[in-house]
């Protein structure tokens, strides 16, 4: 779908939506469309898109998500579930909320989890100052595109002091369609002062689904708010996925982001974290596994805008076959942001000659009293470790599988939810050589 196709799709939708969405949303959509039109899709000459060519997305003919829901059986859906005990679960099929498959009851007072369309109509005062304000669409045509097609998604709001014991689960499933679908799920999270929640965004696709998910999440964390955020992307290996997480953190707030990408043909994630006030801290924990001809690109940007803020970033990639991985980690420390701490590592395991990875740290520091570190490694499995395992009787394949699993395990071990750790371990083992034997072991 080219730029012109999106403009056309926008015009045909805008007329009928006017009755459903408030004026401020219609205006927001329209201005974002203007920015999208002017910027167009990025090409590889764009510094932020040097290693990721999105032409396949532009060339492919997608159809916009329609109101007619694809038939989907619960049994089929269950194969894609993570098996996590959750407070509420919202299921989106091809980008649109499926009320029948969702479970939205049982939240404590002070917590709201609502279909975005409903929230846009009834909670304008809360949403208007946040929506499109945390994600800067001057930076990205895909964010502009998301805002232009704003309609589907979720609003999560926590009143001050509200603590959710169990996670909020969002499952996005795409089905295999004759003509693949494009959808723009938008998630807005507002964590009031000292609130606490876990949000799991899980993207799954039926085998063969060649859909295009263009997803944007914005989160505002007020003073002392804590968010554990999961993005688990397991779409089909034919799917296109462009996603971003934009977080604005106030005093003493904490974000733990776990970004795990296992699926997708062409995947790009942008994480933009603003540590706006003292005491804010963030952990960016990331893992991707790419095989076949998958292409997975993670761009992170941490902005230390205030003193005494802290960021820790640990990204790991496992790249096999003819797959390609990209990591770019930018840390920006403002002039006044003294006594901050920023640590970044990017470790990559390249399992075949045809695989490739590009990793690039970028530190821009304008303060002088800071502790910053970064390290990037690209390598193969350690020969000494391999020999050690073989010398104990493990065959080469089992040894390689075990070491690869251990490499991924470093990221998994930082995940807070036990059930997610277990499920991810299972999924990861399933993709390793000799997985039958490994399954019995680990």
């Amino acid at each position, binding site marked *: 779908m080219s730029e012109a196709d999106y403009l056309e799709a926008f015009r045909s939708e805008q007329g009928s939506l006017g009755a459903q969405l408030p004026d401020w949303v219609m205006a927001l959509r329209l201005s974002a469309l203007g920015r999208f039109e002017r910027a167009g899709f990025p090409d590889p000459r764009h510094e932020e898109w040097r290693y990721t060519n999105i032409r396949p997305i532009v060339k492919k003919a997608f159809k916009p998500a329609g109101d007619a829901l694809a038939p989907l059986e619960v049994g089929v859906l269950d194969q894609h579930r993570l098996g996590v005990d959750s407070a509420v679960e919202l299921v989106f099929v091809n980008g649109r909320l499926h009320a029948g498959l969702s479970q939205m009851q049982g939240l404590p007072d002070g917590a709201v989890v609502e279909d975005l369309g409903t929230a846009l109509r009834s909670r304008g005062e809360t949403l208007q100052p946040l929506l499109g304000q945390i994600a800067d669409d001057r930076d990205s045509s895909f964010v502009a595109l998301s805002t232009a097609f704003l309609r589907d998604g979720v609003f999560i709001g926590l009143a001050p002091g509200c603590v959710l014991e169990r996670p909020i689960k969002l499952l996005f499933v795409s089905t295999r369609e004759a003509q693949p679908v494009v959808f723009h799920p938008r998630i807005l999270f507002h964590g009031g002062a000292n609130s606490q929640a876990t949000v799991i965004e899980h993207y799954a696709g039926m085998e063969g689904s060649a859909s295009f998910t263009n997803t944007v999440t914005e989160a505002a964390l007020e003073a002392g708010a804590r968010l554990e955020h999961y993005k688990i992307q397991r779409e089909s290996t034919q799917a296109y996925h462009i996603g971003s997480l934009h977080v604005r953190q106030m005093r003493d707030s904490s974000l733990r982001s776990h970004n795990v990408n296992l699926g997708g043909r062409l995947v790009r994630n942008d994480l933009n974290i603003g540590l706006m006030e003292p005491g804010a801290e963030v952990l960016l924990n990331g893992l991707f596994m790419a095989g076949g001809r998958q292409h997975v690109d993670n761009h992170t940007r941490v902005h230390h805008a205030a003193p005494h803020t802290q960021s820790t970033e640990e990204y790991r990639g496992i790249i096999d076959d003819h797959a390609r991985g990209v990591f770019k980690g930018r840390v920006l420390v403002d002039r006044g942001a003294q006594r901050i701490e920023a640590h970044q590592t990017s470790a990559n395991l390249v399992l075949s000659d045809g695989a490739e990875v590009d990793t690039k740290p970028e530190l821009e520091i304008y303060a002088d009293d800071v502790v910053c570190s970064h390290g990037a490694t690209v390598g193969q499995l350690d020969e000494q470790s391999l020999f*050690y395992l073989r010398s104990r*009787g493990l065959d080469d394949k089992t040894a390689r599988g075990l070491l690869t699993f251990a490499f991924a395990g470093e990221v998994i071990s930082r995940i807070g939810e036990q059930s997610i750790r277990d499920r991810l371990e299972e999924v990861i083992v399933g993709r390793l050589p000799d997985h039958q034997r490994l399954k019995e072991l680990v």
Partner: protein
Amino acid sequence: MLKITDLHAEVDGKPILKGLNLEVGSGEVHAIMGPNGSGKSTLCQVLAGRDGYQVTSGSVSFEGQDLLAMAPEIRAREGLLLAFQYPVEIPGVKNVYLLKAAYNAQREHRGEPEVDAFEFLQLLRERTRIMKMDESFLHRGVNEGFSGGEKKRNEILQMLVLEPKLALLDETDSGLDIDALKVVSEGVNTLRGEDRSVVLVTHYQRLLDHIVPDFVHVLSDGRIIKSGDKSLALELEANGYQNVVEAA
């Protein structure tokens, strides 16, 4: 059990073993002593099948089979196990995974069914007690953050679980304090048996106070230049390698 005949091996094109002969019978304990650079570690690596250690001539037969034709994992499954001088740390691979995988690989090789998880755990518990190791070790990454002594104990623990026909110990005593040395020695002595053999490669005599060998060999410049009983070790200790090497 093991018969090494006129073994020549090189590393990076440099000859290290230059016609080594050694025969180890069932139930015997042999100590191979020698100065640094004599080829002790190379011999161990060659026997375990490490890449980069090139055998240029000679033969090694293990239980009547051509050892050098076997992949490293087959050697282990056939019952030849090396305790490394410098065991590697493998973060993320739990000890218990490794032990279970190794144990079952061996059973499968022998055509035996896999062990029941509960039974295996019992076995592990019992063996960790012999090595005076805390059970929590089993759930830590292989040698991850272990002290030198803990790593060596872990090597012997693996032997106790896998019960090799031939245990090959590469400087297992180096870097151990006396308490750890006793524990390690006790572990090795537990391994001894009528149909099991042990080859100790060591620089120092003190290990042999605890594990008494049937034979002692002096390795120098890639060949065994002198063999004797345990008194040879005492002689080496008293007079130094130089005298023995010159006399030979």
